[in-house]
């Protein structure tokens, strides 16, 4: 397990991947930082929230090759034939990607340092926003890890995680649409004589259920500096869920009867 963790980290920095991801992250956050500060903003939380919105670009870069490349080059034979456990390897690869992500966030720490030097202040909102950002990153990396295990094509893996992460940004829009669709269908098919109030509440139920899955809404409280434990439980659950799916997908390949 540690072997794979070390190998993945090494590989990030042997190939352009790690450097490109770090540079991209630094450029985007740096751009925001440099245009935000002169306009009188002394609160970095705005930057962190902004950066959390561009995770759909950064995360696919760091997760796309985790498993897909092993499948493509045939090195996955080592994973299956060594006496190490597959689940450990999945976790190791996830942790390696997460480590790279944490390293990328050193940029943000530097921004905080600069702000402090020039008399800005770090408050609960700043720290909360940074924590929310990291938590979101951890969730999305788990999704990206899973996406990478679904295919042997890095581009497809990247596009898949890109799409899922991007869509998760807009759950609140979809949930609103699904609410009106539900209401529309129920009113049109209203054979049981359900009252319009009940139809409306059914629509709200659909919307709320979808919103419950919105990772951004979950960490919203952190972005305004309120610390709660539920978002952590939610995010960790999602991470465990996707890593488990990844593990099952890898294990399935051994048992597959479809080549």
């Amino acid at each position, binding site marked *: 397990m540690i072997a794979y963790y070390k190998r993945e980290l*090494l*590989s990030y920095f042997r190939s352009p991947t790690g450097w490109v991801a770090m540079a991209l992250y630094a450029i985007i956050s740096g751009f925001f930082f440099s245009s935000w500060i002169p306009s009188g903003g002394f609160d970095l939380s705005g930057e962190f929230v902004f950066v959390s919105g561009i995770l759909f670009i950064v995360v696919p870069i760091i997760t796309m090759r985790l498993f897909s490349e092993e499948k493509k*080059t*045939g090195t996955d*034979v080592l994973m299956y034939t*060594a*006496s190490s456990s597959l689940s450990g390897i999945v976790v190791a690869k996830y942790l390696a990607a997460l480590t790279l992500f944490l390293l990328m966030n050193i940029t943000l720490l530097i921004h905080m340092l600069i702000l402090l030097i020039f008399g800005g202040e770090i408050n609960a909102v700043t720290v909360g926003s940074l924590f929310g950002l990291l938590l979101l990153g951890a969730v999305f990396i788990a999704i990206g890890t899973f996406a990478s295990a679904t295919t042997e094509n890095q581009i497809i893996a990247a596009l898949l995680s890109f799409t899922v992460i991007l869509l998760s940004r807009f759950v609140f829009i979809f949930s609103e649409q699904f609410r009106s669709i539900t209401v529309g269908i129920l009113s049109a098919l209203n054979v049981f004589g359900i009252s319009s109030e009940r139809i409306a509440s059914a629509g709200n139920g659909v919307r709320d259920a979808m919103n419950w899955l919105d990772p951004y809404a979950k960490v919203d409280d952190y972005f305004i500096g309120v610390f709660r434990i539920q978002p952590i439980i939610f995010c960790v659950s999602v991470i465990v869920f996707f890593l488990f799916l990844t593990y099952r997908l890898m294990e399935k390949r051994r048992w597959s009867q*479809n*080549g």
Partner: protein
Amino acid sequence: MIEIKNVSKYYGDKLALNNVSFEVRDGELLGLLGPNGAGKTTLMNILTGFLSSTSGTVSIDGHDILEEPAEAKRNIGYLPENPPLYPDMTVREYLRFVCELKKIPKVSREKAIAEALSLVKIFEVSGRVIRNLSKGYKQRVGLAQAIISKPKILILDEPTIGLDPRQIIEIRNLIMSLKGKHTIIFSSHVLTEIQSVCDRVVIIFDGKRVAIDTPLDLASRMIGPKRLSLTVASESEYIGDALRSIEGIKRVTVVRSEDGNVQYELLLEPSADVRRDIFFSMASNSWPIVEMRSNEPSLEDVYLGVTSLAERKGGSK
């Protein structure tokens, strides 16, 4: 000992392995022979636990590969057809990684790496990035990966494919040098390679195990009647009759006639040695023999015979 019992494998509707059974004895070098697509790689993947079989069992020293994978896999070193190398690592980094993966204790790691490096003779490239190595060196790094944990069993899938003739000989010698230290299963579709190296041969065709024996026994058992090629420097029309009158010769056919030399092909009774009789018969008629050659059955004949037999059976189904 490796026991393969009634192993079948389906890929969707396609039957890749059909009820294959055989045993591999400790310390032997077993050749797995078969045309491309016959199921050699599938069988090896099942032996190493990379794939599961649809039915049947594989046990390595009494450990079922799927029931007790950790115990079974500890004894196996596997070199797949494409060596599983990470191109961005140096040879030494890669071998260190493999050591960790195979749970070789930290204290003996450097020693194991040094031994593997010197065994496959790649000490001089140990600091180079794998991406930049030639195919032959990559193959050796793959082999080092397989032998580094000193497994009892080595499974090598087409280890010489894609190498130049010189590299082929080197890899083959390397495998020969490992003989006795490990039980080796080694697949190839190159007959001479198997013939020169292996103790026993398993021929796989169309997913079925069609033959298993030592290369020599396989040849004599499968080939049937012996043949003799005879060239006489005379165009006399009586030669054929003279030959036919010798006891032990079943059939005489003229292969070709050129510059006064006539080449005959003689089909012999299995146990007959008629070379002396032929000499005296020809000599008494002053027909000079310019060439006489007995065609020893080679593994190639066996292979062609066995596979075309299996093909015909398959076709008549």
